[in-house]
């Protein structure tokens, strides 16, 4: 290598530009969304959930049949161009009934997430933020309730309240927020000790400001994940209750009811079980994939 003396002249080294590509205002949520997009299963789950929601809203209007109209001559028909999913033993169009079932299942899911978001988040948030004795009493109650499987409570409640859609909402509402309360409280307790919360208290920030600006925005990740994972659980609970006869009553058709009807004629008309069962499993899988995907993309420990 030939080196000329001028090579040793002092000159400033070329600097990296200030705003490098990696550091131009990508927020936490943009980052998380990018990671979620890389997760094929979660995206598939999300797409399916959107599709089934659309179908549940619009589908029954377009299928040309009503979920309750009986048509005995066409009973127990296998899938055809007239009835894509076939018909049941009273000649009702199965696809309409499955889509109608989706309405019930999804509204149960939405109800469960609303309960989680209100009761669960508030209960856990208050316990965590207040701390000390209040926290102790509130969480002991949750611990006691949590000791027994939730499904058992719901079954007992349904036996007392009697079947029906409203009663399912009620039964779920009474117990389905326990897990969320625990998670939110844990989050708030850890975040409360973070130095940025101390710094805010030091400047004289009010409790409301600390909750709204610091505690809640930083617990949204886990809250979102828990909500997403609570939906399939609620959907399954409803299906299970309807399956054993404690859920919604005829002629309303939830997936659990359809499945239990399908089981009766499993030998001769297996498709009557197949479609509702598929609907239940794919929906639950979708929510679970999405929830897991959210966990991976939102969990701070997975970051960078």
């Amino acid at each position, binding site marked *: 290598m030939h080196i000329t003396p001028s090579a040793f002249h002092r000159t400033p080294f070329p600097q990296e530009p200030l705003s490098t590509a990696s550091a131009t*205002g990508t927020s*936490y949520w943009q980052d998380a969304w990018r990671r979620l997009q890389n997760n094929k299963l979660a995206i598939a789950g999300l797409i399916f959930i959107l599709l089934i929601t659309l179908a549940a809203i619009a589908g029954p209007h377009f299928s040309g049949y009503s979920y309750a109209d009986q048509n005995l001559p066409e009973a127990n028909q296998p899938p055809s161009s007239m009835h894509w999913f076939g018909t049941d033993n009273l000649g009702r169009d199965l696809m309409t009934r499955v889509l109608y079932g989706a309405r019930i299942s999804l509204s149960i899911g939405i109800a469960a997430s609303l309960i989680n978001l209100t009761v669960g988040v508030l209960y856990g948030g208050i316990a965590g933020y207040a701390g000390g004795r209040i926290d102790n009493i509130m969480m002991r109650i949750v611990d006691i309730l949590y000791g027994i499987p939730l499904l058992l409570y719901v079954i007992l409640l349904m036996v007392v309240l009697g079947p029906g859609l409203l009663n399912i909402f009620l039964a779920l509402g009474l117990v389905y927020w326990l897990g969320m309360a625990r998670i939110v409280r844990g989050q708030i307790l850890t975040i409360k000790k973070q*130095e940025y919360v101390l710094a805010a*208290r030091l400047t004289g920030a009010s409790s409301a400001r600390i909750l709204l600006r610091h505690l809640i925005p*930083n617990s949204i990740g886990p809250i979102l994940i828990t909500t997403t994972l609570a939906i399939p659980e609620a959907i399954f609970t409803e299906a299970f209750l309807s399956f054993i006869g404690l859920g919604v009553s005829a002629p309303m058709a939830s997936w659990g009811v359809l499945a239990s009807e399908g089981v009766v004629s499993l030998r001769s008309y297996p498709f009557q079980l197949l479609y509702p069962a598929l609907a239940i499993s794919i929906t639950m899988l979708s929510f679970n994939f999405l929830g897991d995907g959210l966990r991976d993309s939102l969990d701070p420990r997975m970051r960078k």
Partner: protein
Amino acid sequence: MNTTILSVDRLSKFFVLNRTFLGNAAATVKAVDTVSFSIFPGETLGLVGETGCGKSTLARTIAGLYSPTEGKVLFKGQNIHCDHGKETNMLFKRQIQMIFQDPYSSLNPRMTIHDIIEEPLNIHKLAKGKEKEARISSLLLQVGLNPEYGSRFPHECSGGQRQRVGIARALAVSPELIVCDEPISALDVSIQAQIINLLEQLQTELRLTYLFIAHDLSMVRHISTRVAVMYLGSLVELASTEELYSHPLHPYTQALLSAIPIPDPAIESHRKRILLPGDIPSPLDPPSGCKFHSRCHYAMPICQKSPPELTATDLNHYTACHLVK
């Protein structure tokens, strides 16, 4: 110089831990145990001590984040833990600020740098609109950051840059006393000097007073006017920096100073160390009498019985040891 800006009077802070299963028999951590000292305007008081000796607890009690178990903290003669009405309380919050150790947990990850610095301005309604934006930019410049950084999130900044943001947030309310709780110990060596230089420069520009906490005795020597040494919740020695480093009187201070490795092999090769035996006792069950007696080479019978008081051995030199009277 004789009027103190802050005086700490027989301050104690105990934490009660429910350790047993039923939560009844409680154990108490005496994190800060009857500590008294004063800080003078414009000085830097260094506070050193090993892990768990109560430095952060003392710092947070002084800043008003913890209420003391006993004793009081007077800021310009007024007890900061008493209720003086909303306005005066808020005034205290402006005058004492803190810089934290962990540049990763001291900034809210969901807020931009701009919003982080804006928050204290909003809380105290110090500025509005254009004026506020100008203030934020000038604060960023003051701590050596390009105002463009305002749009970044904390995770897009390096450790040193985050620490600068923490400093800017503390400066936003124009405090007089800043409690720095190990502001450099989480930073890289080459960045530590940057932050120390910045703190020194800000001190002269804004006439700040610092309580500077660290376990790095070299850095404390560099930045402090006076130094206090803490062991298991108590002050064992307090003196002007030169005095403390050249004539340490307490056996613990002596051991601490001899334990720091000097970055010079020529000196290290023939240096004699005072090695302390054993470990730091648990703060749940500190030794009786002088808390240091279990590791002290000079321990006498009296050391196990009565705790020595912090007494002046010289003008501006206080020691808590039965050997030094």
